[in-house]
């Protein structure tokens, strides 16, 4: 598979190492617009993250975000944006999870930087992160019941879903 890809030297090493170390866990490696994405099995996420960090020098996590693949199987996708600062390589790691009870292992024990980003994914898509040290919403208040970046959430919001201060001041 990696023969068709146009990879830089650093990426080639990374992809080769990954496919050799975890032959059954890597689902696909593909490129789009020059970026390299590796999709893996959700159950071995932490194992692969640890390997990437300790063996392949991906010590810096830039971002974590979710994608709603509305109407597809395994509806939600979580993407990890990783940097290898030694070889100047950027790699995207993807895991998918089901619509019913979406749950992914938290990468916060591996990269502390993931904490707030995972809270954002939880806030926007409702994906639960197992073993997250501070599992709360980040932008919306806890009293809010919906997940706004899911495709079925209307652009205008749901009236009455959030308690707002009265606009007319109380006059006694």
């Amino acid at each position, binding site marked *: 598979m990696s023969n068709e890809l146009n990879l830089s030297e650093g990426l080639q090493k990374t992809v080769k190492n990954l496919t050799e170390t975890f032959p059954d866990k890597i689902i696909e490696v593909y490129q*789009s*617009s*020059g*970026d390299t*994405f590796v999709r893996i099995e959700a159950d071995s996420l932490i194992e692969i993250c640890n390997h990437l960090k300790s063996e392949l020098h991906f*010590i*810096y*996590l*830039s*971002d974590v*975000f979710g*994608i*709603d693949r509305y109407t597809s199987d395994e509806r939600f996708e979580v*993407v990890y*944006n990783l*940097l290898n*600062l030694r070889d*100047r390589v*950027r790699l*995207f790691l993807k895991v998918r999870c089901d619509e019913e009870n979406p749950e992914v292992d938290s990468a916060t024990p591996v*990269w*502390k*930087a993931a*904490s*707030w980003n995972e809270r*954002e994914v939880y806030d*926007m898509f409702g994906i639960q992160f197992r073993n997250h040290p*501070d599992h*709360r*919403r*980040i*932008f*919306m*208040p*806890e*009293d809010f019941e919906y997940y*706004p*970046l899911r495709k079925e*959430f209307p*652009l205008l919001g749901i009236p009455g879903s959030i*308690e707002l*201060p009265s606009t007319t001041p109380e006059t006694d």
Partner: protein
Amino acid sequence: MKLTDIQSKVHSTFFKEHQKKLYQSLEDKHTTIEELDDGDPLTTKMVLNMGPQHPATHGVLRLVLQLDGETIEKTKIDIGYLHRGVEKIAENKTYQEFMPYTDRMDYLSPYSNNVALCTAVEKIANVEVPERAHYIRMIGCELSRISSHLLWLGTMVMDAGAISFFIWTFKEREKIYDIMDRIGGHRFTISHARIGGVANDLTDEAMGSIKEFVEMFPKELKDYHKLLDRNRIFFDRNEAVGVLKTEDALQIGATGPMLRGSGFALDVRKFSPYARYNEVEFEVPTRLEGDNLARYYVRMEEMSESIRIIKQCIDKLPKGPVRTDNAKQAYPSKDEVYYSMEGMIHDFMMTDTGICPPEGAECYHAVESPKGELGYYIQSDGTGHPWRLKINAPSFTNLQVLEDILDGEMVADTVVIIGGVDPVLGEADK
């Protein structure tokens, strides 16, 4: 300090569940700290809410601090007071329509935000940008970097106690606003970049004022250095305050001047050069100390590097078009729109559907904004609207660092440390 104590005193009227969980999370942080002796009246611990309306928090940042006397034991940050859901809005707009929203993300450096969106869309849709447009964008980005750093400098020094300095830096920012006015017709939210280039060429007037600014600004910068570099009060307020070590900075994902002030020279302009940054010479200022003073030096040096880049851009500025001449990819020039039927149709089509990247394509492109790595991830479904657009905002990343470095500092230093982190809540809250 028990949760029940706080709850009985606070009487929150709104988002009760939210407040409860926030205080719970504060209580749970570093749970290894020994239990308090409730009976002893001398253990004067208190929970202090700072913000979201505090003037020194640079926007609507809310900090919940647990204090032991004057020392901060633990901190929790509550953000989201400026959450507008721009990522949701982006999914319902064409790429070009979304650009004014990016102006309002990091409203201190709108130009970098415009360029970040444009470069990402150009990458996913394979748009070729003319040489001249690249250089104009670089000039705009570096000017906005100076403008953003000047605001940081003014407010940070004001937080440290020197009020009049704020007026000095705003005098210079005013000049940059005037330049922006001459470049694109707007002082603040400029929206000058376009997908496939920029909106219009630099006029002679704009060019003249940029050249004048580039000549005059280093002298002002020298004055700032003269005032602050040997200033005892400024030093005492900033030295060894808010220290972030290199390993911690990498682990928690600090970005921009925060990371460079902690000793790691990561700059997207060098890491993966975009525009024409590989053709100009500049240094990446880096300090090892990791305290607030180091961040001060990093940002001050970045301003002189920006001046250096602008000078080189002015020298190298090639002649030619400023926007790609492909009606499927970019807006036609106004001359065409006014004087030809095709031009008008193309303009209408661009406004109606806009640029359509290939179906299923996805890309991530980052630029070095004044605050750090600003990246746009775009996933396309083949229509004119993005299926998913994710903004990797540097202020959001750096605020997470703030939650860590505040622990163990003095309350009086919080405002200085927030000033040193330099968050913009419009960007952090999305």
